[in-house]
């Protein structure tokens, strides 16, 4: 994995198409603002849907609240795009950052968990004999979803406190969490 990370950072540095935009005066701040807006859309729609499954606004059909989901997916798309722009501009700050590794982990949990909802509870929630009370399975999935997305936000916010420094000696562990020597700029610090 270590070699793969080093290769990935080098590959991104060699081919990154967005560095010029992102290093301009407004590039990074605007991308960050969009990233936060996307976060709000995501929480506002997926979070609202999860709360509905857990029993908030019980009189509203689950399928009706689900109409907000496309707006959450729009927020997610905005955040994947802007997130990639950060990654493609400062690859070492993310690829070697333990907080980023955890962020990807929680994103994966959130994604797999969401597909579990559609695989296991779709019929009960949306079928002709749908009930107002979500099935227990769906409630567990909703609780996991809320935890996963909150964790994604926390890891995102903590990224800046786990910026990788230069590696010292032989590094162990599943993933590299420091910038190896001779890796261009290495840790940017602060």
């Amino acid at each position, binding site marked *: 994995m270590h070699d793969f990370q080093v290769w990935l950072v080098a590959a991104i540095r060699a081919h990154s198409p967005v560095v010029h935009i992102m290093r301009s005066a407004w590039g990074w*701040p605007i991308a960050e*603002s969009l990233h936060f807006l996307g976060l*709000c859309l995501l*929480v506002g*729609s997926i979070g609202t849907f999860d709360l509905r499954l857990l029993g908030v606004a019980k009189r509203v059909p689950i399928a009706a609240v689900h*109409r907000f989901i496309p*707006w959450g997916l729009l927020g997610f798309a905005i955040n994947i795009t802007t997130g990639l722009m950060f990654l493609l501009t400062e690859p070492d700050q993310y690829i070697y950052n333990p907080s980023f590794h955890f962020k990807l982990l929680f994103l994966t949990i959130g994604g797999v968990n969401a597909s579990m909802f559609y695989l296991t509870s779709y019929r009960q929630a949306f079928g002709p004999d749908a009930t107002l009370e979500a099935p227990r399975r769906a409630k567990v999935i909703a609780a996991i979803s809320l935890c996963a*997305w909150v964790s994604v936000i*926390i890891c995102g916010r903590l990224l800046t406190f786990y910026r990788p420094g230069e590696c010292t000696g032989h590094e162990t562990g599943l993933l590299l969490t420091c910038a190896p020597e001779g890796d261009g700029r290495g840790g940017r610090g602060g």
Partner: protein
Amino acid sequence: MNINPFFVWLESTELSQWVVGSPSLLAFPGILSLHAIGMGFAVGIGVALDLRVLGVGRGVPLAEMRRFVPVLWSGFWVNAVSGVLLLIGYPTKALTNPVFYLKLLLIAIALVLYVKIGRQVFDDTWRTDTTTPEPGVSPRVQRLAIVSLVCWTGAITAGRLLAYTYTRLTASG
């Protein structure tokens, strides 16, 4: 009136120094995380109501959107408290930056609009008379919803720009 001595005093308090200097993850990093989570829920619910007013999810009775009111205010209070803590940590940085006041103004307008829109659409007295259909959304409320969306967007952008537009970090520098 010179406000500098106030900044000097505030930055010398133990609370301010804990927020800024403590190595604990619960200090600055934790407060920032809470501020982002509170934002997600407060703005998220606010935007969801605006979108509903503008025609998204028509199957959700507008009056039922009031069930999410406590979620918005919980997010708001998380952010009021975490925001005040961040302000105690870096008072000079925020209070000498006009963008900070713009952010507060936009949040205030967005919250007033949320309450105003709510007053018009959360009312469900029509429910007691099942022969009366749910009243439609007036163009006026829809205009308020659009202004609300602009305010939330502006507040978030202003908040993010705080990291780039400050001229003084602390009272001494």
